[in-house]
């Protein structure tokens, strides 16, 4: 017989795969109680590093052409497709769902990446526009990326849920710090391997596995973080997160499995530019 080679599931920060600086991990079992993996238990310092990486990647990613971002998001879908089996295995093991159901989730996630890939170079047109000023001025409004956005992935539907949160955030030109599903973090890390081979610049997406109760308060209070998708947090924590987030007036939003350009626009800012017209 041949012994399987097991994968070490690590964090994804700035395009690299480090272990937690704390040296911690947590044991993950499947629904039958079998050991699956020891993913990293990220600390607040890992979160800090992830935010630093996301901030440094922001200038490049937000200035990339929308067409280029669309190409890269589509590339993510291509790479996901090729790795489907691995995701299906991980999802069915950790979520305890059938292979068919896991496969459906993976396919939906892939299709969602494709959908948002196409949005990259359309959101400015559909949401922006020129404004008729009562005077000799040219005036237009366009949505621009917000900055560094924390995405707390939905706990269930581990791959699809994180895609619903992550894809619109980076499609809009933001960089992201994703906190993976606590009970099913493996698809997030496997996605990191996909991202790392999809021409996505390092730091645009940073993925942490670990305890939400430990990480979320630090994310909410971090002054370098501009927005948070809190779809994956229990509603009872909304008040606490929003209060912490108000220190720098973070844009904090919760979505109910929405798939919509509004999810992009929630983490974009409208910029209006004026210029006189005349010779």
């Amino acid at each position, binding site marked *: 017989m041949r012994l399987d080679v097991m994968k070490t599931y690590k964090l994804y920060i700035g395009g690299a795969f480090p272990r937690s600086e704390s040296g911690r991990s947590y044991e993950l079992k499947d629904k039958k109680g079998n050991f699956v993996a020891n993913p990293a238990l990220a600390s607040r310092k890992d979160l800090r590093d992830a935010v630093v990486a996301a901030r440094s990647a922001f200038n490049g990613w937000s200035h990339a052409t929308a067409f280029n971002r669309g190409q890269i998001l589509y590339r993510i879908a291509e790479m996901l497709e090729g790795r489907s089996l691995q995701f299906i295995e991980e999802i069915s093991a950790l979520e305890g769902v059938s292979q068919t159901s896991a496969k459906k989730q993976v396919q939906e996630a892939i299709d969602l990446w494709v959908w948002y890939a196409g949005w990259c170079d359309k959101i400015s047109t559909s*949401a922006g526009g020129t404004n008729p000023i*009562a*005077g000799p001025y040219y005036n237009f409004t366009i949505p621009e990326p917000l900055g560094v956005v924390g995405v707390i992935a939905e706990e269930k539907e581990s791959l699809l849920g994180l895609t619903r949160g992550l894809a619109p955030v980076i499609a809009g030109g933001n960089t992201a710090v994703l906190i993976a599903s606590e009970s099913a973090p493996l698809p997030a890390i496997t996605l990191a391997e996909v991202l790392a081979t999809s021409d996505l610049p390092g730091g645009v997406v940073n993925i942490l596995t670990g305890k939400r109760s430990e990480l979320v308060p630090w994310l909410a209070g971090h002054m370098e973080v501009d927005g948070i998708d809190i779809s994956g947090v229990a509603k009872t924590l909304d008040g606490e997160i929003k209060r912490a987030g108000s220190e720098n007036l973070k844009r904090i939003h919760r979505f109910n499995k929405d798939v919509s350009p509004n999810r992009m626009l929630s983490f974009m800012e409208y*910029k*209006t530019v*004026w210029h*006189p017209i005349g010779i």
Partner: protein
Amino acid sequence: MSTEIFEYAPAPESRAIVDIKSEYGLYINGKWVAPHSKKRFASINPATEEVLSKVSLADATDIDKAVKAARSAYNKVWAKMAPKERAKYLFRIARLLQERAREFAVLEALDNGKPIRETRDVDVPLSAAHFFYHAGWADKLNYAGYGDNPKPYGVVGQIIPWNFPLLMLAWKVAPALATGNTVVLKPAETTPLTALLFADICEQAELPAGVVNIVTGDGSTGAALVNHKDIDKIAFTGSTEVGKLIAKSIADRGIPATLELGGKGANIVFDDAPIDEAVEGIINGIFFNQGHVCCAGSRLLLQESIVDEFIEKLQVRMAKIRVGDPLDKNTDLGAINSSAQLAKIKEMSESGSKEGAQIWSAPCALPTKGYWFAPTIFTGVTQAHRIAREEIFGPVLSVLTFRTPSEAMEKANNTPFGLSAGVWTEKGSKILWAANELKAGVIWANTFNKFDAASPFGGYKESGWGREGGRHGLAAYLKGAK
């Protein structure tokens, strides 16, 4: 000899056109009612310290009454009304404001201290334009890009500042009503009078009772409004400090808020700028409305190669600013709105000197009564100075310099605020590059402090949440719209 030839004689606008009552109640459910607390406070003319009127101090009981009236009006009348009829009420209001423009202009100048030239040419016409613009949206919301039949929130609590009392009322009330919401509006403590006169416009327009409720008061009144359990949305314009408090107050309730907060706008002048117009733009950017402007260009970033020439031109121009009686048609800079604001400006100004920046004030005589501050600039300011970081909200300009375009952008963006920025250059590609780089909600290129009902306004970062004006501003009052 020639200097005395053209001293402009006083040209005061008559205040006879305005009938200010000695005291005002609260405008709730289409009626004037006495405040529950029985307390009233004075609204004064900051140019003379004269008491103009006594207005009511609303407490939580009054707020509850106003919210109930707004709820009832929403359920029974406003939400059910055909949108085209709603539109016509707004058109009526726009026209009534135009008809009574001079009255509002004089009252605003008296209560706020801003010059009649600005209330007459900016505040009042823009307010009317805002109603006119939004009136047209009321029956066209299906075409606004927010899906079919977008829904209003319901009852909106609105809190407005003292710097543009009537205009901020228009920015709040017009889109809220156009989208089908009803409102409880709290004007600023020091400038309630034009909002109270606006109640008269609502009466003349025969607006159904309870659609617009106007409750005067102080910070406690605002807090009562924010904390009222039956408010569906908050819209606030004011300081970042209070904006954060509001964000905290509503954190548990899950209701949305639009926040238009502070700024520390950079006005960036490149060496290839249209210099004379840039000087005007800088003047307009910081001395318009006594600098009581959240989007003021309070940081001048000058390319090092033109610093001396530009500062000299700026000082020559500043010396021509006419400071004095707000009702004089030739006044450019009026009174500081309150003694508290004046104290804040003085404190900030002193800190600038203490931290080593060089102060220069225009040589103008200031009236002995009232609250006044001469147009002032600080040169030799660095990013580390308080006057380069904190909002002064007065006629005080901080001048910084830069060597390269990238350095200008870096300095301009190096602030927790992100409301406005100005760029001055005759090179088109540089304008678009700068507009792309600057982290601010409004970029004025080769102009500054321009406003229009059709143009969205609002900030990045700690300058707030959401936009007001234009198609994008409608989203603030429609559920699920972005």
